[in-house]
């Protein structure tokens, strides 16, 4: 009897020990935020700490940064923070999370926000301000933004007259990817008007090709590349003022402008002669991931692909992305040569704390100093910061994007769906665009999106 109960107790103790051991094991495996602080001394050496003296003594303080930017792009961010860390003694805790866009709202509402968040959409920025947890940007940041960015950029981070954060990176979406080698061989010219783009497409069809390739599959965000197409056409056919009205819902989503813009997109994407080079029929646009959609260009089965500057990262490393290489991009032309509308996106640094070290860090991120350090440290990154030196950008597509952003003729407009209310911009617009490309007509599509617009 005694022996029995003792063995039972032993077993219990063993199970307990094992359980605790397991918990420890899992904890040890999980959350490996490795600190890669020891490399990258290069960026620091060229920096003069004198310019950081105005921030005062901040030794031993910590600033937490929360963002959706994860490996491998996060390294350039961490590296670009080094000079600030080394000169001021502030430690930056960088936390990248793929589900940032939902989690930041949860954290803000739950009262556990980070000190600083890198917010990729003005719409989300508005939602964060609505939680009451976001803190207005300090005057130094506002002054820097006035100095280095166009007025429109400041507007995207302004809610009810209050300005909430400096822009960080930027991307140019009005680009068409092509193969410079193919253009040279066939004698194609880069088009400079929308009509020329159409003529070029028809010429390629006559040469026996399906010129365009497209793909919109992106998990639950499936459909977003079509929103970029539609915004580009809205901007081209009706100009920036109408575009702004459309984004802010001052004109209805099912009005004549919307309908015409979506039909214009349909002229390309729903045209069996034009799509889907190397990928199938029109419907295959819905199931091809956006990452794969432009790759047929390198295989010679597709000639044109509409996608942002960041798409460069999707090509095989052996592919030469340059004006004289395997693939490159040209500016998606305006209606005529006199107008140069550019659709793009970008991130904003929004703070949730106003401690001196957070303010100092925010200010640092709004300077041309940071933009240039960041540009040197990264691949495939540009900023709309006018102080950026194109020579600091390492690859040709980034230089092209920076040149477009700096061009005084450029009329920049932020991605519309990123500014619309979430119910439209990250739900109905995507969903209806997907239905549209799989067969739904234009009228039903714009009507459904209009219906989804939340009542104010």
């Amino acid at each position, binding site marked *: 009897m005694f022996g029995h109960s003792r063995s039972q107790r032993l077993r219990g103790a063993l199970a307990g020990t094992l359980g605790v051991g397991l918990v420890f094991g899992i904890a040890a495996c999980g959350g490996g935020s490795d600190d890669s602080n020891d490399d990258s001394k290069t960026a620091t050496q060229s920096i003069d700490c004198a310019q950081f003296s105005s921030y005062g003594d901040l030794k031993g303080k910590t600033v937490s940064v929360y963002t959706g930017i994860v490996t491998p792009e996060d390294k350039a961010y961490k590296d670009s923070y080094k000079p600030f860390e080394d000169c001021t003694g502030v430690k930056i805790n960088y936390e990248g999370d793929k589900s940032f866009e939902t989690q930041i709202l949860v954290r803000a509402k739950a009262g556990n926000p980070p000190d600083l968040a890198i917010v990729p959409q003005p719409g989300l920025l508005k939602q964060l301000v609505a939680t009451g947890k976001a803190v207005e940007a300090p005057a130094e940041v506002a002054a820097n933004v006035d100095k280095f960015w166009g007025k429109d950029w400041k507007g995207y981070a302004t809610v009810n007259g209050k300005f909430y954060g400096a822009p960080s990176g930027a991307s140019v979406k009005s680009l068409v990817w092509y193969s410079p080698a193919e253009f040279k061989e066939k004698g194609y010219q880069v088009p400079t008007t929308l009509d020329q783009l159409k003529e070029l497409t028809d010429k390629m069809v006559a040469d026996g090709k399906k010129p365009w390739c497209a793909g919109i599959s992106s998990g639950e965000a499936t459909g977003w590349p079509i929103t970029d197409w539609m915004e580009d056409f809205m901007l081209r056919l009706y100009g920036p003022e109408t575009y702004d009205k459309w984004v802010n819902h001052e004109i209805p989503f099912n009005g004549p402008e919307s309908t015409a813009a979506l039909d214009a997109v349909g002229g390309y994407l729903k045209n069996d002669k034009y799509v889907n080079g190397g990928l199938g*029929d029109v419907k295959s646009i819905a199931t091809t991931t956006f990452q794969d959609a432009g790759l047929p260009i390198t295989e010679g089965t597709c000639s044109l692909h509409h996608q942002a500057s960041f798409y460069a990262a999707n090509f095989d490393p052996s592919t030469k992305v340059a004006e004289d290489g395997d693939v490159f991009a040209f500016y998606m032309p305006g209606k005529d040569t006199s107008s140069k509308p550019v659709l793009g996106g970008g991130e904003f640094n929004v703070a949730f704390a106003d401690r001196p070290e957070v303010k100092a860090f925010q200010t640092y991120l709004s300077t041309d100093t940071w933009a240039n350090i960041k540009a040197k440290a990264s691949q495939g990154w540009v900023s709309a910061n006018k102080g950026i030196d194109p020579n600091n950008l390492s690859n040709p597509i980034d230089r092209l994007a920076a040149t477009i952003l700096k061009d005084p003729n450029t009329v920049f407009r932020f991605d519309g769906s990123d500014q619309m209310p979430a*119910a439209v911009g990250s739900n109905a617009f995507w969903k209806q665009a997907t239905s549209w490309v799989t067969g739904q007509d234009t009228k039903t599509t714009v009507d459904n999106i209009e219906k989804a617009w939340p009542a104010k």
Partner: protein
Amino acid sequence: MSTPDTNVGKIVLMVAAILLFAAVVGAILFAATFFRGRRADRLTAYAYLAPTLIMLLVGLVYPGVRTIYESFFNAAGNAFIGLDNYKTIFTDGDQLTVLRNTVFWVVVTPFVATGVGLLYAILVDKARLESFAKALIFLPMAISFVGASIIWKFVYEYRPDQANVKQIGLLNQVLVWLGGTPQQWLVTSPLNTFLLIVVMIWIQAGFAMTVLSAAIKAIPEDIIEAARLDGVGPWGMFRFVTLPAIRPAVVVVLTTIGIGTLKVFDIVRTMTGGQFDTSVIANEFYSQSFRSDNQGLGSALAVLLFLLVIPIVVYNIRQIRRSEAL
């Protein structure tokens, strides 16, 4: 409060939390030993129950009540709109598609999965290599829903019907071998919903088979003997002996799979993200709450899911009790 970002810091925090938890529970249990007198047993029981009750209140009751409360509010959660969210669910075209798909899931999955499992259990019963045959169908149970979804996404994968392009999806390759043209399986509604249901059946059939096989084996030998002596054929044996004997087990399996099916989320989210008219209540609730920023409608969908699951849970528990009483 900031969270530590080093592994050592995390482990220290975790140990501290575990010790704190143990200390609190220990203190409660220690205090419970001080109850004396007539009602001591009862008080001790309450003290022992208290931690569980408190956690249930904080982790289940409060969020539940709060969700019901929020379901009567608008998207931003700042204006009372009565039953409008529920009205939306039952009138809006998109939401009706969601309800339709949920009905498909709940009607098809439990019955087909249980049917397949039952048939398999009977076929392999007492056969040679029974345990091997059972292991085969039980294996998918070991795969997570997301893993299974990715496997099946490859099965349905589409490559264009062009000269030097090879199909990489099993289903399309079989179709090509049979002389057909490859299809984009996950785009056409409502076929795509049924193709997603196949994944759930693939996972759940093993569970049904295991439980039902055990129930079949538990049928007393003398009943079977008696039926044989009465000259009952295989169909009669199944209809009048096996099925009535395992009825409680069948009901438990049906309802358990039914509950799991109502809450299905991973498969839809992984395979289509709810696109192409494949969304179901659980997935739509997530999209509305976290992507579409419509807390009210999201909460209403959650409440609806809750209301739909309750009767099945009640029935399930009753059946389990009854089968235990047997």
